[in-house]
């Protein structure tokens, strides 16, 4: 039976119910709190507190998205005709509008005078979200684990920490006005492209060998 609209409609409710709402809510709430901190009289660190806070918001959101593919029922449902890639895709589709709404709210919480250029900072947020999804997808693809969110979040955190340590000239943390700001945006675009491609590559279930945990 081909994938029909009726089948998709039937799937929406259970997939929606199976989303990791706790992780998403915690990350979303924290992110908005960070954004709201921009309205405090004492603003965040650095010369560009709006950008700093929005980067923190984006990273928090990405850490929440690291849990998006968590599926405690994975081993019970992994051999059904409507496979994991479809469900993973549906999860992304269901969460995407909420993520857009959440990001827009975060942007609006940053006062106008301290708000950084929206295009570049949104590109950074998208790249961080795509990185989280790529890591989670790879974890699902190469392990048997049903809940890969914690490990993915840890790896994402480590990656972010390493990225911060890279000098701004070659890294991802330049601020507007610096001579390498535009080059930084190009690097963020590359991160976005690579992670989207990695997600696409890791999503299908292979017909040949894949890594599995040794059972009995």
């Amino acid at each position, binding site marked *: *039976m081909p994938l029909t609209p009726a089948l998709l409609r*039937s*799937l929406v409710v259970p997939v929606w119910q*199976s989303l990791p709402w706790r992780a998403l809510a915690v990350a979303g709430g924290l992110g908005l709190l960070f954004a709201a901190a921009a309205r405090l009289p004492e603003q965040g660190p650095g010369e560009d507190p709006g950008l700093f806070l929005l980067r923190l918001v984006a990273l928090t959101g990405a850490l929440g998205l690291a849990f998006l593919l968590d599926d405690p029922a994975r081993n019970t449902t992994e*051999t059904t005709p409507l496979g994991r890639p479809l469900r993973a895709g549906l999860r992304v589709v269901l969460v995407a509008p909420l993520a857009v709404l959440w990001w827009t709210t975060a942007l609006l919480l940053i006062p106008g005078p301290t708000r950084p250029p929206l295009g570049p900072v949104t590109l950074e947020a998208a790249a961080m979200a795509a990185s989280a999804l790529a890591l989670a997808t790879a974890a699902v693809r190469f392990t048997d684990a*049903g809940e890969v969110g914690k490990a993915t979040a840890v790896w994402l955190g480590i990656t972010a920490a390493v990225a911060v340590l890279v000098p701004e000239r070659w890294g991802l943390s330049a601020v507007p006005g610096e001579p390498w700001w535009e080059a930084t945006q190009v690097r963020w675009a590359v991160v976005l492209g690579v992670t989207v491609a990695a997600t696409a590559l890791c999503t299908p279930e292979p017909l*040949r*060998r894949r890594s599995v945990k040794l059972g009995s």
Partner: protein
Amino acid sequence: MTPPPAPARQPDFQELRMTTAPSTVTATDLSLRYGGTHALDGVSLRLSRGVTGLLGPNGAGKTTLLRVLATAAPPDRGEFTVLGHDPGTAAGRLAVRRSLGYLPQTPGFHPDFTAFDFVDYVAILKELTDRGARRREVRRVLEAVDLSDVRGKRIKRLSGGMRQRVALAAALVGDPGFLVLDEPTVGLDPEQRMRFRELIAQAGEGRTVLLSTHQTEDVAMLCHRVVVLARGRVRFEGTPAELTARAAGRVWSSTERDPNALAGWRTGLGTFRNIGDPPKGADLLEPTLEDGYLLALDSESRTVTA
């Protein structure tokens, strides 16, 4: 010196009918490695309708074999077909999955789903589109596993045995032709195990069931065929009666543990039950399926088991 084997029990009509039935699942030379370990090492077997037991010690490769046959893990080498479909292609794998019910060793759930909602979700994943027909089917399988009364309860509120039955209902939904059950009776109390045996026996009527288990009693009570797997290789394939017959004349009682025995243990009566090549004049005992199973293993696997 090997004593003359005792006559094997003649297979009854039902066994004969089952063993001569056409194969529904065939596997040839299946191999799968993890690093330097052969989880499966050239496994070939044929399954027909009815319940086939898969026996083997821990680490024998049972779960790996079940995962391969259930299309959860592709093999490194070898081929298999399920109900005429080759899962080596995307279309073939889809066709296999449409005919498959799989109960993993430790089934996972969405804990906030009710039993009904979870089985309904699996039914959707099995492409049961029509809402009314799907709900009737979900009610049918929940009734079959005796969970109708708790179908509205969240899974996190159910006992371990009930969760296991939810997983079995999920495997049964859609009436699959090939059912793969990975140690479904582990962790169940005797009453629940008996109930599960009834369910599996019912499930084996008209479909192919592959049942992985550590329990030789499960095999003796349920299975028309048995496969013994050890260290990734098939050590025996035949009927339970044939496996038992292998131990005929090779089980004896003694007052001390016989050092020449391949395996031996003290029984509740204080005597030792030995298996292997008995000494002359040994007090031979009636063999059991477990004796045959232990003899089918290689010495390394047997040490672990006995």
